[in-house]
Structures are given as structure tokens and as C-alpha cells.
């Protein structure tokens, strides 16, 4: 049973046909070719599939694509629509917070959701916010450093 749906991904409206059982993760990666969103576990544990739904982090592997209609979906590809790097992306590069990079989209999007509300967030709050994203390279200390630095930049109003 194909259903015609409309998704607003990175501020662009996409019309496509999906099966009810297709997850948002499947549709983003396979139909829209936005492969920045990763599948690690597929079961809600790792956070590599993180996207923002109306600005809030959500595991795309646990959401049916058709439930993402009528919402604003942001993937890592849509982080800065002005073509440049988002302060978080630049800070991750500067701090060397990326090793293999598999967890990076989930880390950056989760951090963005926090800093958009509170750029002054401290270390403890950042740790809690990122608790749903696992990094098997163990880059956590540098990730936190990068998020703190991005918060400094974003305080100025990005």
C-alpha cells in the first residue's frame, strides 16, 4: 500500500510515495539520498540516526516516515542553508572532535537543539543532552570541548 506523503526536509518540500512500514531513516537515506543520517543500531540505542523534528532531536530509525509529515525536518545536510559551516561544524573541526565521524551528525544535531535554546549550556548539561549518542571512537571529551566553543560563538547570535 503506497501512500503519497509530503515531507519538509531542510526547508524543502518533497512529495514522495512511501509504504507505511518505511521509517524516516529509510526514506531520508534511500529515497532522498541524504546519507548524512546514519544507521548504527536501528533500535534507538546509538543516536547516529538523529534528526531534528521541529528543532527537537528524534531517532529517525524509530519514526515512521508518514509520521514526519506536517513537521520541519532538519538533517545534518541542512545545518547551514547559507552555504557556509555552522559554528558547531567549525568547532568540531577546530577541536578535532571527529575521528571516524559516524556519530558526528548525531552529536552535532543534538548539540544544536541545545545551543539554539541555551548557548550558555555548561558541561553537565551538554553531557546529558548528548547521552543518547554513542561514539565508539571515544571522542567524547573533544566533542564536549567543541560544543562549549560553539556555544561561545553562538552567544553572539548566529
Amino acid at each position: 500500500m503506497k501512500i503519497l506523503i509530503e515531507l519538509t526536509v531542510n526547508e524543502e518540500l518533497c512529495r514522495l510515495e512511501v509504504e507505511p512500514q518505511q521509517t524516516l531513516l529509510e526514506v531520508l537515506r534511500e529515497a532522498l539520498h541524504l546519507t548524512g543520517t546514519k544507521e548504527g543500531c536501528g533500535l534507538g540505542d546509538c543516536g547516529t540516526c538523529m534528526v531534528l523534528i521541529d528543532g527537537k532531536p528524534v531517532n529517525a530509525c524509530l519514526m515512521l516516515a508518514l509520521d514526519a509529515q506536517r513537521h520541519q525536518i532538519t538533517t545534518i545536510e541542512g545545518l547551514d542553508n547559507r552555504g557556509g559551516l555552522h559554528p558547531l561544524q567549525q568547532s568540531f573541526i577546530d577541536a578535532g572532535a571527529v575521528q571516524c565521524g559516524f556519530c558526528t551528525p548525531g552529536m552535532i544535531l543534538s548539540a544544536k537543539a541545545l545551543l539554539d535554546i541555551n548557548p550558555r549550556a555548561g558541561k553537565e548539561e551538554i553531557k546529558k543532552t548528548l547521552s543518547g549518542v554513542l561514539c565508539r571512537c571515544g571522542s567524547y571529551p573533544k566533542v564536549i570541548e567543541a560544543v562549549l566553543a560553539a556555544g561561545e560563538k553562538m552567544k553572539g547570535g548566529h
Partner: protein
Amino acid sequence: MKRLTPFSYFEPATLAEAVEILSGSKEKAYLLAGGTDLLIRMKRGEIAPPALVNLKRISGLSSIEREGQSGIRIGALTTIAEIEHSSALRASHTLMAEAATALGSPSIRNLATLGGNIGRASPASDMAPSLIVLKARLNISGPRGNKQVGLESFFTGPGTTILQPGELITSVFLPDPAARSGAAYLKLGRGGGMDCALGCVAIFLTLGNTDTEVKEVLVAVGACSAIPMRANKTEALILSGSLTDGHIQEAAMAVAAETSPITDLRASESYRRQMVQVLFSRALKLSWSRARSSKDTH
């Protein structure tokens, strides 16, 4: 990519329509709320629902509203994150926010709903113990109309409830707590949450005329029996004396004896029993101090 196997899909616009689909369909239909439990069990191949009934198009199921002077009503589709951040709940039922913060990760809490947490009937649910001590009542709709059931009599076993075919939870009612009361929820899990509780304890306590006299106390323990359980014997023991360190210690022994934890790959039976004692003592002291510093409501 982990995929879901196909199912018939229903998206009712009203509660009446949902009940009709649930009770009318020949195949067993499962309710889909946040999906953080259901979709995982489907992906793991533990269940293969022939039909899913998505509740999210039904309006009016996701609000937190005061019901006059008597209490607060939380819609079944309210997310755990909404409970965590609700200023109305923080004002009258802080315990709900405390329990919500202990569940999963921020992104799971953005999806997971209260109705789904109760409907799943997990013995390790983070919400159930607090709901039990807050005397939660569930509003249930079904083919024979609406009814209200106390949460304590809702669970019948791990994953099973008193819900009949066609019935669903529409909201949860929490009566306002009495004056001079305090509550606490403590959970033992790996790495500050993100994990199923190895043991968890919720306590609600109302003080009498003095700061050591207990007028009412409710204790609920999770992950240590087939269903989230009310520790009646322990409550009776607490009420039998005034609050002192010795009395709290005695009560902690009672709660450990009253639970029936199992050994599994997460933890052994004896470890769980010991941890429940520790969680219980801490939660009792915390709810006691909160009751002492509370004014009208806790």
C-alpha cells in the same frame, strides 16, 4: 538496514473510530503511539503485528490540563519530554518530572509517550512506580464506553494488562497531593539512564502533626517483580513508628524481603535486593526532607 515487515495501517481521526477499528478488525491490531517500544520489538522479530492503529491523528490526547481543584489530567499521547518540562506538573506533581528525566535519552523522551509506557506494562517501567504512589487513575475508552481504573490494578503480568480487545488508555488522572507531603523517585541503571532500570523505587509521604509522624505513605518498587508493585507491608511498617534512622533501616529490610527480583543477564537476584534497600532508604529520606520543607502542596 533494519526494516519493518509490512502491516495494514490505520490512522483514525477520532477516538470512536479507533475503538471501532480495534474491536472490528479480524486481525490483531496494535496501537502505535511513540513507537519506541513497539517498532523495536517488530524490528527484532519478537512480534509481527498484522495491523497498526496510529493514534497520533486523534486530537485532544496530548495535553496536560488541570481538572478544577482536584488534580491534573495527562493525555495518553503526551510525550515523556513534555512531562519532564511541564511547569504545571512541576508545580503540583514534581515526582512526574523526576521520573520522566530518568527515562531513556532526550531523543527517546521526545518520541515516547505516557500511554505507551503504561500500555507496554514493563516491570521495569520508569513511570509506573511514581504513578502508583501518586494514586493515578487511568481513563480507558472501549466498545462499552469509558471507565476509570486505578493504575495499581491495571497490570496483570509482564507485558499484560486488564485491557480488553478494543480498549485503550486515553488519559491519566493524578489527584492533587495533600499538604505536608513529599515524594521521590530513584532508579539504578547503567550510566545515568539510557538503560532499563535494574531496580527503582518511588515513595510518596505525608507528615502528620510532627515532623517525624507519618500520616500516609505509599511505596512502589519497579524491576523487582513481575509487575511494578506496591509494597504494602513496608508501608504498614513505616506507619507503625515515627521516622528515625533505625526505623528507616528496619523498613529497608522489609522492602527487600517484600520484593521478588529475578536473576538475569543484567543483575543477580541478591544484588537487586540489596540495591532496592539502598534506593529505598535514600528515597524515604529524600521524600521525608521534601515533606518537611513543603508548605501547602509538595
